[in-house]
């Protein structure tokens, strides 16, 4: 695997590196150079780049951990859901709807990590989840992070979801930042609108700034997975279709 990396803030999009690369291992994405898998670290581009935007990621812990490998290695959408036997919680249904839309836009599966009973798992499938990783709620006195953090981390690392969505709730705030830190990635503050850039597959969200006095459209600097919190009442729920099929597996 190559160690050559692009510092995307420094990249001016001049395409000098694309021109100099005889292996055609550099591609422009969203105005920035991206190193492709078949790069052999010949260093021609390092020498050519006048902006100091290309460097060796060899020593970088970030590169070793994976997230910055390449955005192409990351596919699929995961949502965090909670519910009981009567079905999913409201916030979970909204997150599910947001995830379903993104999965459709990107042409990928929607998976869910569900804390709840069988009824909730069925509800999740009926409302559009393709695969539910279901587990029973843990008895926890010290917070959700201690109970769900590592199974969730394991699942994300194994499946390489490009997008992970949480509702805007205390459990999410307990979990999502910790996951994001361990995965060395971005966590979007609660978003009220979500789209993707089809070329880069970067997530574009709208967040409320200063208590709603302003809105900001935000995106990632390129890291994967893109973890986002979903604002309540911002995404209309999908309706439950009992004929819909999906897989339910027991999660750790």
């Amino acid at each position: 695997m190559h160690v050559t990396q692009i510092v995307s803030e420094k990249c001016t999009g001049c395409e000098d590196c694309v021109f100099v690369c005889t292996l055609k291992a550099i591609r422009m994405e969203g105005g920035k150079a991206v190193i492709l898998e078949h790069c052999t670290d010949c260093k021609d581009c390092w020498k050519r780049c006048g902006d100091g935007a290309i460097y060796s990621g060899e020593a970088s812990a970030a590169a070793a951990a994976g997230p910055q490998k390449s955005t192409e290695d990351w596919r699929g959408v995961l949502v965090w859901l909670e519910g009981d036997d009567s079905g999913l919680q409201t916030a979970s249904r909204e997150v599910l709807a947001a995830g379903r839309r993104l999965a459709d836009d990107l042409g990928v599966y929607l998976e869910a990590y569900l804390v709840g009973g069988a009824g909730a798992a069925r509800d999740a499938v009926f409302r559009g989840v393709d695969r539910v990783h279901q587990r029973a709620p843990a008895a926890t006195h010290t917070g959700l992070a201690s109970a769900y953090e590592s199974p969730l981390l394991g699942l994300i690392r194994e499946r390489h979801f490009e997008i992970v969505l949480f509702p805007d709730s205390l459990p999410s705030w307990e979990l999502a930042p910790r996951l994001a830190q361990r995965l060395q990635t971005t966590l979007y503050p609660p978003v009220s609108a979500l789209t993707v850039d089809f070329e880069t597959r970067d997530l574009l969200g709208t967040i409320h700034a200063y208590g709603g006095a302003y809105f900001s459209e935000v995106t990632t600097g390129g890291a994967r997975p893109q973890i986002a919190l979903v604002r309540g009442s911002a995404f209309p729920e999908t309706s439950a279709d009992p004929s819909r099929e999906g897989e339910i597996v027991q999660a750790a």
Partner: protein
Amino acid sequence: MRVIVLLKQVPDPGQIGVSRTKGTLFEKGKRILNPADEHVLELAAELKSKEQADFVALASGPEPVVEVLRRAYAFGADQCYHLVEELDEGDHFAKARALAGAIRLIAKERGEVDLVLAGKGSPAWGAGQTGARIAAELELPQALWVAKLRVHGRELEATQLAGGEEQVRRVPMPALVTVDPSANKPRIPNALLLMKAFKREVKKLGLEELGLTPDAFAAGSTQVRIVRTYAPD
């Protein structure tokens, strides 16, 4: 008991505007201490008097950030540290990694840290993520949005406040706690302490000292990048 308080300097919400042509927020006035952090300082001051806690404050960012640390001294902080860095403000991953590094260094210098305190959030984006990220970096248990905090020996009894509901958590120390603004009413600092704060030394830390090279920060790919900001019509 040793408490480290994390302080953030933020744009004054009453002193911002948005440029229509550039789609960016601009700041008209001086930055202030994050209002939520006043409650953190108050809690730390209370722990100092009730538990004889060693009260340490840490803020990171460019030079003017040192001003918020004066406020910590005015609240009675024993020592303040300024981690001088110019990381992107939206790069929570990098900020958390840097702050965690600083906390480790301070623990080495002053002794084990039992409690890391941070504010619930900031005016700009509401609830914050840096606290929990730091907890992950330091492998600490956490309690977020805490409205009441009691110390029982080596254990914290934290009452979390979410959606108007209270939830009691027991968390062993060392731990990280973010403080809900309902936790207390920040005091008006004593004028003499306030003046002395200007003469107290703030220890400077640099990323190199923490052993953090640019590589440690995932090259900025982890930032929440603002594309455009606008006022709703």
